[in-house]
């Protein structure tokens, strides 16, 4: 049974991945171009124009490198959540006409987003290697960061996917919420730049922990204190359980509602 689910999940992920680039000239290359584009824009805006620099206590003085460490998990999460939101409604005919575990549709887009991140990550590590900034000593931290990121993405994805079947506004709302979440996470700026009195709120943001974990992992750092990771770990666990619970509870009504 599990075996079959994995096989089906693989096929759904492939369907998603291939379906997206079908008919485009650059195709698969877009998964390189898009992160580079964001990187270039943000670097120009925040580093060149607004003179933000990673500052003291960060592992790198290069803004682009600093930014990309945070951009990697962020882009995968954003893509995963947004595409999961419409995963069920986009496959309305499938859900209405065939009997299959529809939660795999959500997992598939979450993993497809992870696949894109892996490609961008490979490219990033290559650039770090060429410029002599590569360090393998922290890479093991990804074994902690990636599962937490997947749990958080999937949890919010399941929640949004199920609710979006009944309220199509969810996709719009999610777009706005994610925009806010991006700027309230120290991705384009270091936490040290945030005024003292707001800092505790940002530290409660689970993504702060995730971004920190990525920077430590990719720039040869160490395991951050468990206290700083607590918001990430608890939020990831709670959203995954809650998301799956809500999804399962609403699933029997999907075929009748879409």
């Amino acid at each position, binding site marked *: 049974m599990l*075996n*079959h689910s994995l*096989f*089906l999940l693989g*096929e*759904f992920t*492939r*369907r998603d991945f*291939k*379906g997206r680039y*079908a*008919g485009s000239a650059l195709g698969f290359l877009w998964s390189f171009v898009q992160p580079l584009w964001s990187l270039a824009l943000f670097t120009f805006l925040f580093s060149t124009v607004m003179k933000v620099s990673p500052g003291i206590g960060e592992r790198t003085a290069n803004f682009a490198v600093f930014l990309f460490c945070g951009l990697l998990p962020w882009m995968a999460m954003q893509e995963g959540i947004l595409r999961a939101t419409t995963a069920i409604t986009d496959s309305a*005919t*499938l*859900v*209405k*006409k*065939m*009997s*299959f575990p529809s939660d795999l549709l959500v997992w598939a887009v979450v993993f497809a987003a992870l696949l894109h991140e892996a490609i961008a990550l490979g490219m990033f590590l290559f650039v770090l290697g060429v410029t002599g900034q590569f360090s393998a000593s922290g890479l093991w931290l990804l074994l902690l960061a990636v599962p937490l990121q997947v749990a958080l993405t999937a949890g919010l994805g399941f929640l949004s996917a199920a*609710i979006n079947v*009944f*309220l*199509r506004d969810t996709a719009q709302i999610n777009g706005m919420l994610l925009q806010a979440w991006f700027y309230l996470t120290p991705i384009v700026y270091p936490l040290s730049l945030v005024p003292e009195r707001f800092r505790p709120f940002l530290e409660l943001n689970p993504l702060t922990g995730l971004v920190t974990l990525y920077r430590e992992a990719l720039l040869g750092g160490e395991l951050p204190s468990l206290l700083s990771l607590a918001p990430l770990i608890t939020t990831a666990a709670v959203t995954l359980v809650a998301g799956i619970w*809500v999804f399962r*509870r*609403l699933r*029997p*009504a999907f*075929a*009748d*509602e879409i």
Partner: protein
Amino acid sequence: MTHPHDPPVVSAEDLSKTYRVYARPADRLFEALLRRPRHSAFHALKDVSFEVERGEGFGLIGENGAGKSTLLKILAGVTAATSGKIRLQGSVASILELGSAFHPELTGRQNIVLNAAMLGLSRNEVDERIPRIIEFSELGSFLDQPIKTYSTGMVMRLGFAIATQVEPDVLIIDEALSVGDGYFQKKCMVHLKSYLDGGGTLLICSHAMYYISAFCERTLWLRDGHVEALGPTQQVVPRYEAFLDAKSNHGEEASEIVGAPPSAPARIDDVRLLTGSTYRHGRPLELEIRWSCDDPEMAFHLCVGLNRPDEVEVASFLSHRSGAGPWSGRTRHTVRLSIPELPLVKNTFKLYVFLLAEDGLHIHDTWIVEDAFNVEYEEYPFGIVHIPHQWVPINDPGSDDG
């Protein structure tokens, strides 16, 4: 192939489905989460019970909106019944809409894998069956093209090929029999027959009584969500047809008959009534049917139907039931139907000639002769048929006055 001691493969007990109609979409969300009613009800199915035995062909008929699709969706596991019990033994594959599971950007081959996986096959089973699916679909070099470049007929061929080659214990088909051209339809029907003969269980929902009669031993007639009739197809289908007739849907039946396109592999060239357009009681009636085909290997049966102008079927003549044919070995055929005597007393009659495939099921071509012949009479006869009879006076001594 029915085994009376086995438990039924499908057993439905008092199935009901109530669709909830909501004023606002959000009401549905609140209700599903909070379990507090916020809807008005629409009863799509009411206390439907039936059982299907292993190896049985089971038909589902009824007008549009009678609940057929809802019932099939419940059986296929797509939606849940509001109340009642459903039990299914073994694997189930359903074709509720051929090709609905295909992704337009993926190639035919990639879609085969995805679709077969969704129907429950493992990777090994998929690998093993792919060649058979490809062969059955006859899509050839198109298989590595994206599905979006396919014609509707090609998509349906692929969908049907997958669903049948998956070889489920129970196959559910919803109006999917009109697949592709006549040749492919025939192939599908032959396949479904052998699937049934091999112990497979088939549930068909169709508006074509011809298919229901060909495949199903028993039929369930749904009307406004409840069981109007359930029993042998031979009994249920005529009742349903009579019901439709009563609703004066005369035109519908006739419109199902469509002549073969000029490119068809076999077509009727001519039908001639050798005995002329006037029939006199006691004389024979002879009909000559000519047809041609592309492949001398093809074998044919014929069916001739005699209808009154108001489409009452008066008589039918089927070569495969009278032990004649099948005819093959040539590309041009002529067969004569001889009827020694017609017991008809009056009226004008219409002839339907069907050129059938070897299995006596698939129709290659249809030829209709309107006003084929008129029955002459000398004195106006009452009734429809002439029945041989005798009048015998009985000399009963008890009633004799003299």
